[in-house]
């Protein structure tokens, strides 16, 4: 049959897709460099980087993302581990629960959060610190589908029971098994979950915007209302940020595979 001849029909769709990907990116890049008339300049970027609100948003979002990741790991790793070890029959329930944030639109979810936590008995929205606690909880929930599944898939590749029993027979307790045996074996899964969570939180608009916290995305949205060139520069920065996290993810997961092949 037509063995290795070039399939023009396929090339057509691929080129179309590439154009769809690249044109807006190029358009944005081009636009962001044209702040000064008739010349290419980095003026828009300079303005963005000179704006303390940008750095504040960046700092805040990064911090929240890191806290979210830590909380997620502390919450989900032992849970999934326990599920594998003791209650495999809990899996269907866990799967439904962890997919819920996907079914409930974030805007609806944030509405529920505000209704619940803006009044007693769990009033958290009064102070910045407690609001940040609430926002982290929200981020954990929003990124849960990914985090949970990444850990789940990683754990599936481990023979959790045998590992645990082997470690216990060598005198480890539960905590030691988890920290010294399970977690090191899960590091690729945890890292990939963490990177996606990071990208999610860095770009998250709804929670931060409605809980009125100084995150990166609301700053961008605000800037978009009043400025023309700076938002384009911000879009490029944000694109680079996503690219960076996902690129790192690619490297991490590939590194994991190689390590696997070489028999660790």
């Amino acid at each position, binding site marked *: 049959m037509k063995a290795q001849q070039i399939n023009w029909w396929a090339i057509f*769709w691929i080129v179309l897709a590439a154009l769809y990907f690249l044109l807006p990116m190029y*358009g944005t890049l081009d636009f962001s460099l044209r702040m000064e008339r008739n010349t290419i300049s980095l003026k828009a970027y300079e303005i963005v980087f000179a704006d303390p609100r940008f750095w504040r948003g960046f700092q805040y979002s990064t911090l929240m993302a890191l806290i979210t990741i830590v909380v997620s790991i502390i919450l989900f790793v032992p849970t999934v581990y326990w599920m594998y070890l003791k209650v495999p029959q809990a899996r269907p329930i866990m799967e439904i629960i962890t997919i819920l944030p996907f079914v409930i639109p974030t805007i609806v979810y944030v509405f529920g959060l505000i209704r619940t936590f803006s009044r007693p008995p769990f009033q958290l929205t009064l102070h910045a610190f407690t609001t940040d606690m609430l926002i982290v909880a929200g981020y954990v929930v929003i990124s849960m589908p990914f985090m949970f599944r990444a850990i789940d898939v990683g754990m599936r590749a481990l023979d959790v029971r045998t590992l645990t029993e082997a470690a216990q027979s060598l005198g480890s307790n539960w905590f030691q098994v988890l920290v010294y045996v399970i977690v090191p074996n899960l590091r690729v*899964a945890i890292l990939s979950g963490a990177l996606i969570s990071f990208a999610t939180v860095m770009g998250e608009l709804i929670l931060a915007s409605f809980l009125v916290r100084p995150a990166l995305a609301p700053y961008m949205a605000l800037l978009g209302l009043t400025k023309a060139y700076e938002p384009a520069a911000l879009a490029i920065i944000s694109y680079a940020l996503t690219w960076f996290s996902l690129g790192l993810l690619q490297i991490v997961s590939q590194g994991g595979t190689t390590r696997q092949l070489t028999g660790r």
Partner: protein
Amino acid sequence: MGRFSSIRVLLCFAVPPRCKGTVVAMSTSPPPRYRNNAWREHPLWNWVGLVPFFLFIFLFLIIPSLNLFTGAFVTNKGFFTLENLSVFRNPLVLKAYMTSLQVSLLTAVIGGLFGFFVAAAITLGHPPRWMRSLIMTFSGLAANFGGVPLAFAFIATLGRTGFVTALLKEVCFPGPDGTQICPFNPYDHGFSLYSLTGLVLAYTYFQFPLMVLTITPALEGMRKEWREAAANLGASTWQYWRDIALPVLTPSILGASILLFGNAFGAYATAQALTGGSIPLVTIFVGQQIRGDVLGNPHEGYAMAMGMVVVMAITIVAYSMLQRQASRWMKV
């Protein structure tokens, strides 16, 4: 970015290499030491380790959701009522739901079809390897790219002064009477990025890569022998697609469609940043309701938000019924 990231989760099953963990092989397992504590044998004890998780979920997912539900069915004073549901008789609200459904269906279909063709091109079309990995990498990126920056990108590209608009504007011909005719300026033909069309164009940017990511593994699973066996029995290419390829792909296509639909239905940031809330989507409406009480009664807002969950629930139930029908032939 934003909520779109979480979509990758669902791909985890479909794209195992992304989620691979490390494998450790153990040849022997020495017998574990069990302490003889009868109370530990009780089946409920097994669930103890899940308590922190369930507590967290209960507090930060279940209670807020229930609160919306109860909120939708009580008056300001806290009495039970069905009054709030009258919000669904409000033509503005109905319009918002219709628009949201329309956008979601439209982008799911357009993004789905486009994504399907692209995925088919990179799998069945046997393009050079680098094209394939380029498309896959970009899809991973673009499916996670949404919200405010996406809106900016489209404004810079297809907005009034966008770069593609400018290019199209400049395609001019001398007319018969010596004047210049520039027939390709999209804004002369009623196009606007800040309209429904623009929104659909922008959504497609993350919708079709999502389709590519979800459907590619299914297309890769299409065995060459099926096509050959069909040809061998006299089937034409078209008959093969109708009788074998599409039925085999249907469960995956259904799954991907629901993903795309939900993805668009819940999207807020892109629309807000692109149109400044001028297109009445349910999410925008709910957002305005949270900001300030546009409906005059917060409980009607809860009813509206609950309506979104109901739409999603109905979609998922319909999906699982269709799915059961379409995947009769699959091993569970």
